[in-house]
């Protein structure tokens, strides 16, 4: 059953990606990219990564779609037709893809308890989190406490993104207001 869900989700993902490549109407492309995010969120749920799925659904399918639509409203919703040789690009993409797929063959099987990721600090987190932090959700404890530095870095990245957008786009509105 799970395999069936996997196959159909991945099939839809591939179909969405091909659709995005072939369409020239950017409005439809943005909508398809939202669908792509929602489908990946479904895949993350199948992989038992609900926290990641949550973020993907909210950011990828929600906010990004709205921001992309905002960008389309400022620019144009039709892609300019390009007549270029795409064979070298296709070759590079194909070689990279084949290399990536080849390298996955070396990875441990999904959920394998002997995988290196489950041998390092993960067992300690799982054992000690309730006693050390009193937080039942290990993901939250790891994010906010054990890996607090990383989350501080991520928050700073978001802060910087907001700052960048304000500097680039926020000034026009402010100057409109100050000049009567």
């Amino acid at each position, binding site marked *: 059953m799970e395999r069936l869900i996997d196959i159909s989700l991945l099939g839809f993902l591939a179909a969405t990606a091909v659709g995005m490549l072939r369409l020239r109407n950017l409005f439809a492309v943005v909508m398809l990219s939202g669908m792509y995010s929602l489908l990946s969120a479904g895949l993350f749920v199948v992989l038992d990564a609900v926290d990641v799925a949550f973020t993907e659904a909210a950011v990828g399918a929600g906010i990004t779609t709205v921001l992309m639509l905002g960008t389309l409203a400022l620019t144009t919703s039709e892609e300019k037709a390009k007549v270029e040789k795409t064979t070298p690009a296709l070759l590079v993409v194909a070689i990279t893809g084949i290399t990536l797929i080849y390298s996955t063959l070396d990875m441990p099987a999904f959920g394998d308890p002997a995988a290196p990721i489950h041998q390092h600090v993960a067992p300690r987190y799982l054992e000690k989190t309730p006693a050390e932090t009193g937080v039942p959700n290990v993901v939250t404890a790891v994010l906010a*406490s054990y890996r607090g530095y990383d989350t501080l870095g991520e928050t700073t990245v978001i*802060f910087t993104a907001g700052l960048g957008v304000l500097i680039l786009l926020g000034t026009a509105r402010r100057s409109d207001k100050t000049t009567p």
Partner: protein
Amino acid sequence: MTHHPVLRVIAKLMIPLILLFAFYVQFHGDFGPGGGFQAGVIFGAGLILYGLIFGVETAARVVPAWLLQGGVALGVLLYGGVGVAGLLLGGNYLDYGVLLHDPVHGQHLGISLVELGVFITVSSVMTTIFFAFAGRES
């Protein structure tokens, strides 16, 4: 968007639920999936929906620009401040165990404060970015 009664009515029904759900995700992050980042995004999405339906001008009266821009910085400041508080109380940077007498309670408090910081910054940044894009149109 002002001429769409269906959208307006549905949005009025949905927005309080979306904001409430954001707080649920925030405070339930200790027990289930979710946390400051997801809650911030959902809260920001609620505000963005309000801006989409009722116009950026109306939304800017609900959450003025100074409040959002303050929030962008305040969240990171709170996060870093919790770390500095740990330093001042004799621990390492971002070591929450020293915040309260009981290390477990200190950890809990630190995680809550840090998640609140993430929530404030993420929700403010998401809304700010949308307002910056949408305010440009008019």
